[in-house]
């Protein structure tokens, strides 16, 4: 069973994504704070990470940079799920190695499709 970690400071986003992915048979770990995100990720070794950008203390993009800098974790695909909708934000995210850049508001169904697609591709690899 695939495992996805979602990090967001808005509880309802966590709730929504968790419900949606769980229904599709995906194991979901939610995290409300980004401070010790890298440690948790290392511990959990998920198949996919969904990150919010705007978070207190450590921003999502910073978490992404740290992950990509870590050779053990760099291969885990990252989805950026953010309210930052500007084109240059998206560009910055993709430069940092984000797999998919999804802007809020989003359709849980579409998010699931993307997650399944990415996980499926990984599984077949």
């Amino acid at each position: 069973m695939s495992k996805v970690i979602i990090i967001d400071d808005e509880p309802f986003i966590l709730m929504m994504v968790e419900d949606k992915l769980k229904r599709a048979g995906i194991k979901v770990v939610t995290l409300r704070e980004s401070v010790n995100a890298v440690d948790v990720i290392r511990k959990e070794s998920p198949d996919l990470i969904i990150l919010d950008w705007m978070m207190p203390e450590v921003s999502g993009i910073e978490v992404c940079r740290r992950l990509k800098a870590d050779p053990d974790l760099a291969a885990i695909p990252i989805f950026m799920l953010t309210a930052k909708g500007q084109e240059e934000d998206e560009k910055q995210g993709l430069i940092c190695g984000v797999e998919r850049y999804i802007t809020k508001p989003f359709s849980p169904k579409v998010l699931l499709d993307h997650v399944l697609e990415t996980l499926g591709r990984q599984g077949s690899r």
Partner: protein
Amino acid sequence: MFKNRLAYKLLVVFLVFALAVIAPLSLILYYDSVSMIQDIERVAFLLPEQKAIHDGFETQVIDTFVSLVFYIFILSFIASLFLSRRFLMPVRELYRGAKAIEEGVLDMRLDVKSDDELGAVTKAFNDMAAGLKEKTNALMRKDIYVNSMLDPLWVVDMDNIITDINPAFTRLLGYTIDEVIGASIFDFLDEENEKVMRTQLSKRDEGISSSYGISIISKNEGLIPVLISGAPVVENGEVVAKIGIIKDFRAEVALRDALKEEKDHSEAIMDSLVDVLVVINRDMRIIKANRAAIATAGEDITGRFCHEIFHKLPESCFIRGMDCPVKVVFETGRSYKTVHEHVEAGNVKVFHEITAFPVKSSGSEIINVVELIRDITEKKSFEDEIAQRNKELVTLNSISRMLSHSLRAEDIFNNVLEKVIDMLRMDGGGIYFLDEAGRELICRYQKGASEDFMRGVARVRVGEDIPGRVAVTGQSIVSPDILKDERVEKSILRHSGIRGLAAIPVKGKEKLMGVFYIFSFSPRIFTPEDERILDSVGEMAGMAFENIRLYEKMRELYEHQRKRRAAEQQNLLMFASLLSDTLDINTVLDSAVSAIKDTSKADFVWLLQADETGNLLLSSASQEAGAKGGMVYSRDTSSIERYSMEKRKPIVFSELVTESRFYLSEYLSGYNTACSIPVYVGNKTLGAFTLYFRGFTILPEEDIFFLQTAGNILAVSMERARLYEEVIIEKGMADAILQSIADGIMTVDTDGRVVSMNRAAKAMTGLPYALDEPVGRPCCDIFGYSPENTELRWALGECLEEAVLKRVSAREAELFTAGGRKLPIEINSAPVTDKEGKVAGVVYVLRDKSREKEMDTMKTEFVRAVSHEFRTPLSAIVGMAEMLMDGEVGRDRQREYLNTILLEGRRLSDMVSELLDVARIESGKEVFRESEIDFKAVLEDIREAFNPVILKKEMKFSTRLEEEIKGYKGDKDKIKQMLMNLVDNSLTYSDGGCAVEVNVGRHGDAVRIQVRDEGWGIPDEDMGHLGEKFYRGRHGLSTKGTGLGLSLCREIAKMHGGDLHIESAAGEGTTVTVEIPLRRKE
């Protein structure tokens, strides 16, 4: 003794006579006596004693005789002298008279010594002397006029040999009278001017007067330009000589050249203006236009009607009920501003802001109107857009509210549809929902169409007809008129009377949920804006923020524009008063009329001037004769003045009463003799002045000649004043316009030296050399003050190079001002050409673009911030609704989901409200709901509202009412809103466990509200930006908010007559103090 030579002559005559008579008589007597004694001696013997007596007798006789004769001679001489006295006295008197006249003394009278012929001669002499004196006086007076004339004068005989000049001639041309008299007039002219002179002199031979411009070779200064008024000297009806009054025209020629050059220069500058500038006369014809005007309306703009150009109307726009600025200015005399919809070439409709102002003559009469026309189509469309967006905003807000209060999709869509129909002024619309299977669209709601029709289209299969196609493609179909639209030829809607139609897909994030359509019964063109609104109804909340911001910006822009316009207006008014300050010809004419009256001994003199239509107006009069400038005779009235003007020669009537063919003004009764002299220059008759005498007076020919000369001088003065005025008005106008333009204007010659710089250009740069007399300085030096201006100097240099090639150009550059500010500016340049069409320099129009740039950046920043804040709550609404509708949420979770949607919906709604609040308070439209405030209750409410957060973050929260405040009246909701915002800030920007306290008390005559925390504090770099709307400091990167809270608090404090202060130190905490007066000033 008298020295009368006549007396000597008389004495000589007497002596000759005496010698001729007495000498022979004495000799004869002597010889007779001697012979008689000898005879006696011969006959008688004489004693020796007798003999001695005889001899003695002879001597004795001679002695006696001679003495006797001498005595008689003396006696008769004395007697004759006495007798001739009566005859000599009158002769001596005559002699004295003759001597006196010889010495030039005419002021004497001879005594009449006798009543004989000599007496009569003396009397005749006296009369003669008196006559002579009168004649001489008259001659002398005229001589004085001629000699004291400031203008030179020469007289030539029929062979064109100069016979006389006056002292002014020597002063002007340097030749003495001896050098000139006897010389030919042509000796003083070069070949070209000689030809002119010959033609003019031949006119004199025919008895014609005229004025003409010519150049005379002076003794020391080469050619001098002059204006000559020439007239024939007529004696006994025959031309005997010619006289010319010479007017020094050097100053005029130089001034006219200089003014012309200045004017050309100014015109070139006006031509490089972006705004259209036209001068319009009373006939509504355009008499002058700048290049911008010609570019918009074509080369043939001058001479055409303004309404023809700008409105494409055959008659004036005021006839159509528009407020014609030209008419208003002519009627009120004041400048006027309005906005007109104009039609440009190609029938493009544009909005023009017109500033019209009067051009006045020296007599304060409005002669023309200048219109400065600025294209505000863009501004207007912005304003329209704002109006539209405002409406949209309100709609969006209510939609956002609906989102938070209702979760029934149908309700939402129904309401949305209604709002959209209303907003776009459509006749109706409907909404289709996609059925479960996704095969059919079912109409659930409709408005505006008949029931019958609706039954026919209640269900539409996906893929069929318009709604079906929209459902399949997911693309809107918008048709201005479906009857003419080939794409929808099969639609059943075509038989329904519907013309304009828009069908828009209703999309969830990915899935199509239905189609909504709106229609009108008349063809309706959907603008891209309409389509955009329709498309964005789904994501309307995000848009709402942008709209408010845009509104704010536009309001600022508008305010800025308004101020700038007011300043321009002020300058234009100043300029208008400058124009009326020209040379005062009236005083000159008044003194001329009184001088003519004095010298001619007339009883009344007046000067009438012809206006352009031919009416005769009173210009000056020696006594009361009606208002100056008032009409004396209309152009059709036959008058003495008109007669003399038509004949172009002096007219004298010695018996006015018999001249019934002329109409006489009411002021002219009682006069019997009139002499009217026409006043004209070249072919132009300016008017006439007339002398009126009570008696029957005969004016001598030389007097009339003198008056005619006076008329010529007057004509030249009047014409000169008019020329001055014309040129000065034109120059002044151009100058004032330049100074009052808000863009910086600078002209530079081909060497790169500054020729002129207007106020705005000086102010814009603020550079020391620009403020301290920039004219003459190299342009590079001025901008070189700041070394960073190299790029700008390059740009200016390139423009100059383009200008030398007679090309206009446009550049953008940055200007570093004296204050170290960096202004983005736009440079437009155009060549300035001189009279010969050679490039003399370049004119730069510098436009400050910093406001525009700043606004651009702010707008982008705003959209970024706001869209972000909106997207998060929208995620809950969109995402959770989708999951609910898809039936994926278990019963246990449903309530939690709905609750979240409701909460996030409210959060969205609050944000929109907050924005609207700020906008409303700032625009002054917010209603102040006054009530007595119970601060204790307010503090309790706040504690309650924040209790969950306080507990969660374990904050040490305290409220304290230091003193009971009774009777304070304010807007309770607003005060509460302010406190909520401040407390929210403190709680958000503090770590858990920190203290936050709210104190309310009195401070003097004010209520003091303090919110103090021990939180993160505000970093120094953010302190300066507090209160800027949408500004989010360093901490804003990691927290949520709109950046509106503090702005709103400050506005609320201000609304209550108070203010808000912030003290903060990073890491130590923040104290916000609000003080509002207990008694508000109304």
